[in-house]
């Protein structure tokens, strides 16, 4: 496994206990999803991200903290059911915050 060395700190940010919790969630969510409504799939991925994010909070840098705050605005039972457009907008908004976080971690990008 390789990590992009140019983005973010290289200090360990989560413990084995935290990582195994997220791993267990992802593996069992993959199995559970086989029997569940498709609308649950994005909810599970966001919850997994929230679990990982929760463990990162104490040691995260400022740009990552901002991303984690935005991630936490998703309710634990939010699905695209009620309003698909609103859900899409919320996800797109989160992706923009993610992009800002990545840019902040990379440092100024020189134009080519």
């Amino acid at each position, binding site marked *: 496994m390789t990590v992009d060395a140019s983005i973010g700190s290289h200090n360990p940010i989560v413990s084995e206990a935290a990582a*195994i919790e997220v791993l267990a969630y992802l593996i069992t969510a993959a*199995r*559970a999803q086989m029997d*569940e409504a498709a609308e649950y799939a994005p909810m599970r991925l966001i*919850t997994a991200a929230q679990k990982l994010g929760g463990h990162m909070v104490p040691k995260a840098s400022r740009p990552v903290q901002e991303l984690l705050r935005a991630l936490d605005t998703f309710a*634990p039972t939010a699905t695209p059911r*009620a309003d698909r457009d609103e859900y899409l907008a919320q996800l797109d908004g989160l992706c923009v915050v993610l992009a800002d976080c990545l840019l902040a971690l990379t440092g100024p990008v020189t134009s080519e």
Partner: protein
Amino acid sequence: MTAVDRAVYDALRARRVTRRMSDRAVDPETVGLVVRAAKFAPNAGNRRLQPVVAVTNGTKLRLLRLISPGMIPVPQAAVVISIDVGRAASYGFPPRAPGLYVDVGTVAATLLTAAQAAGLGACPVTSFSRAAAGRILNLPETVQPHMIICLGYPDPTGGPPPMPKP
């Protein structure tokens, strides 16, 4: 309606899942009261092929939560409803006979009402790995877990909103 009938109806109407539970312990008698209510559930042919086990061990509860993506509460106890497929086969049920699953539902509804009567919050969970849960609970291979009912006192500070109603 008599006052008792009205109280039963009001209880049904007032029940909601509890997804945020306090860390107040639930004593074993109260869990037992909930578990024993399973025998009051209507059951096809009265064969009782849905064993119900209580989980109160803290480590087991934590492990169950780790393998249950749908478990939002942090429960103080849990009740697991399974299907005994070995006994079902001995009655001549084909595998995956729908009636066996319907009876999981009737047991669940009864346990949820009993939990409410006991002052407990409850949250049914079917989003979990049955294979991993069977291993953690040391169930025989012929006993398949199908629902975990989380139990605990509601956190007075509230919790996430219930799922949207259709």
